[in-house]
């Protein structure tokens, strides 16, 4: 039986100066999934916002068309359900509380049911998420993927309700979130997507939803290794202090930790297709003697059954030679910069929103410099819609007099998307 396997590459400068106790590394993981016919079963739940605000004809109609596209993209045999979300939830298709199995008949019926949707009511996203969780919980599907579409804020409940639901549902399914228009809150959807290891994005024009939904479903269909875990072993008296995905987007995994062993922690990374992701790992170690080499971290990629699919090692060697410890690993430097870039954008936009132009200018200027340095063209383009760039290299910028809300939210949403390292290695 062909097993998936994962390549694990560690980029680091393993040389540390005398007395240093922090080891940084970038762990790049590439999945090699098994052949198509061996791929795991998949189920998708689509959570459509049907609150009153969606009633504007263009939005609801676009959402319905997007749902049609999503249904058409389901492969035969996939489990699926369409749920209408308001201050409560309504099963659109199927009308039982069990997932339907995709086929010509069910796809047809589902689309007819979607056509019947009407808007009205409030927004209580925790209930939507719990409804998806309940559908998945009663099923045997290995890959569980939800898509949440909203156009507004979570107004019908306290924020704690969502936090509580996420704590409960974490690692039981993956959820991509899409906000249409500009009346939703980036922070609300980001909280959900980060907890459920999905993506978040803004859809400016309702019409764009169709291609976006189809793409999301296709991507979900391509996932072929469910519930992959990054297992980090550290020496006794050492500790993992940072674990975050840094490619394709910044995603802090610290909250996704489970202790596997007194010296090892597991970090859920969700389902994988044939893809490459990079993770930043920082370990606090007790400093050893000059000349000593320590295995600071064993990195394993582990599947749901505990099978090890790939391995890597993070080392540390103490030296008195600055020529060794002085060099910064290019990958580590690059992704450290990408994380800083995302943080600077976030801080800058927060300051901008809270009426602190000085901080906003400073942070966004830093972001421009970091984007220029890493040749992150996409982010640079988004930044230049919020600030006028006078000198990209030094990060001299001026806030635009009026910033379009859509540009603000787009930059915010996509601030976490990183770029790979350009140039020669």
């Amino acid at each position, binding site marked *: 039986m062909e097993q998936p396997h994962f390549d694990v590459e560690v980029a680091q400068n393993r040389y540390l100066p005398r007395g240093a106790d922090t080891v940084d590394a970038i762990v790049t993981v590439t999945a090699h999934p098994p052949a198509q016919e061996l791929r795991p079963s998949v189920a998708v739940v689509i959570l459509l916002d049907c609150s009153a605000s969606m009633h504007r004809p263009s939005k609801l109609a676009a959402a319905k068309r997007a749902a049609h596209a999503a249904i058409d993209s389901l492969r035969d045999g996939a489990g699926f359900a369409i749920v209408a979300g308001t201050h409560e939830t309504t099963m659109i298709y199927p009308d039982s509380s069990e997932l339907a199995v995709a086929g010509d008949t069910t796809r047809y019926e589902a689309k007819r049911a979607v056509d019947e949707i009407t808007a009205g009511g409030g927004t209580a996203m925790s209930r939507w998420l719990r409804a998806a969780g309940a559908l998945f919980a009663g099923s045997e599907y290995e890959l569980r993927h939800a898509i949440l579409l909203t156009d507004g804020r979570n107004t019908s409940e306290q924020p704690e309700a969502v936090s509580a639901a996420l704590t409960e549902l974490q690692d039981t399914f993956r959820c991509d979130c899409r906000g249409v228009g500009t009346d939703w809150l980036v922070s609300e959807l980001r909280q959900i997507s980060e907890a459920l290891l999905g993506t978040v994005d803004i859809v400016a024009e309702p019409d764009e939803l169709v291609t976006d939904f189809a793409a999301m479903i296709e991507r979900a269909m391509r996932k072929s290794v469910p519930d992959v875990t990054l297992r980090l072993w550290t*020496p006794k008296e050492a500790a993992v202090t940072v674990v975050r995905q840094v490619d394709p987007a910044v995603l802090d995994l610290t909250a996704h930790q489970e202790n596997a062993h007194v010296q090892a922690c597991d970090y859920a990374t969700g389902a994988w297709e044939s893809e490459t992701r990079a993770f930043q790992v920082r370990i606090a170690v007790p400093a050893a003697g000059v000349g000593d080499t320590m295995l600071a971290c*064993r990195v394993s990629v582990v599947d749901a059954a505990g099978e090890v699919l790939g391995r890597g090692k993070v080392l540390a060697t103490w030296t008195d030679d600055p020529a060794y410890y002085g060099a910064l690993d290019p990958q580590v430097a690059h992704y450290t910069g990408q994380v800083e870039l995302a943080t600077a954008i976030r801080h800058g936009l927060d300051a901008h929103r809270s009426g602190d132009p000085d901080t906003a200018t400073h942070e966004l200027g830093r972001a421009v410099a970091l984007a220029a340095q890493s040749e992150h063209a996409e982010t640079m383009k988004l930044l230049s819609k919020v600030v006028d760039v006078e000198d990209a290299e030094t990060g001299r910028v001026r806030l635009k007099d009026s910033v379009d809300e859509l540009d603000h939210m787009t930059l915010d949403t996509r601030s976490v998307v990183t770029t790979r390292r350009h140039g020669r290695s």
Partner: protein
Amino acid sequence: MDSTVMSTRCPSCGEPARPGDVFCEACGGRIGESTAGAAAVPPEPRAEAAARVTEPPGTEPRADSFAAEAMTRALTQWPVADLPTRADPAWPIAEPPTRAIPVRPVGESPTRAVQGGPAEPTTTAEPAGPLHESAPQAEPVWPGEAALDEAAVRSPDARTRITVTPVGGSVRDSQDGCVHCEYRDVDEDGYCLRCGLRQPTGRDRMADDVGVVAGVSDRGRVRESNADAMAFGFTGDAAQPEYVAAVVCDGVGSGAMAGQAAQNAADAGAAELLGCLADGLDARKASTMAIAAAGDAVNALAEPGPAEEDTPATTYVSAVVTGAEVTVAWLGDSRAYWVAPGARADAAGAHGGPGEGVTCLTTDHTVRNTYLADGMRAAHTLTRWLGADSDGTDPQVSTVRPDRAGVLVLCTDGLWGYLDDPGTLAARVLTHGSAAGAAAGLVGYALSEGGRDNVAVIAVPFPAGRRWP
């Protein structure tokens, strides 16, 4: 000579390695900084090596250790590979489900027989005692005093037998558990399963003892790897060898290439030296031919094209000790000292400062640097060396005929950098009762003084064949 049958072995498991390999294909262990492709080893029969280990009474038959080792390799996995389920987060560290049993054969420090002449190769079974002064050794054979002036009687088969240290350096001493935290389990790559620290690898500390000559080399306390190397052996019978030959090298630079260059030079130099001597060449001619062979072995490492940073180069000092003479040859600043109780050698052609009972037989090929305060390395710059960018080998050769029994010491600057007073050397050599003890003692001294550099020390009692003067 036999410089074509070359291979290198993993210091951990003995698996043959390809030239340039840094990690062993079999066990994943680090092969060491000097997995040169150049040194000659006929495929080494491991069983022979094991059979030659002296067994203390009451221990398990050593042959089991290989089965045990194989089993360990099969059993030993990363501790993360099959952790218990999440339901059992409090799995006690003291009871991991898999366990590395340290099984390296104790005291495996095999000498090796190579073909030394036109005759059939003979495998010698000279026991190599562990490097302890108390180790059981064959009763020392002391040639008569007359032998000091006369060449030892040549046995008919002296030319056919050469005994040399293992190519690539000795295996490290066996160790039960982690040398750092004493936790009992160490993984197959040498990393402790508790503290994560790597165990010393083959080149970090090397020690070998063939009775009539012994040496120790250590990484020191500051450098990351050991770029010093040594090789030695003798021709003929261990009880009465015709020639004892030794080579010490100090790789230039601190990278992996430095250690590789040094070990290549030492291995090739010692093999050629002993081969030439067995073929009947005189000590001086054999010494220069050995340097040429060592130079070839170093240059073989050089990559074609511009190689600016990691060019292979090394110092070199060799000694040939017979019943009557000591011949030293050198390039660079590794030294040979004559140490005798209370007298100086008849140092014809020898240089170096005086000292009570100590004569330095070599002159450093260095440019004196005025900034001595920068430490030993910065204090001298080599003017001659072996390997890349060297303007041809231009070794110095010197022969002395000591008038009494003594000890020849070959060492790198890792030792002599701490010998402000040569008298220290005499005191530290002569308090020991064996070559192995003296070499270990001198290395220990360098380490206790700070171990700023790698250190390699070989001690050869004179006249050849004596266990101690």
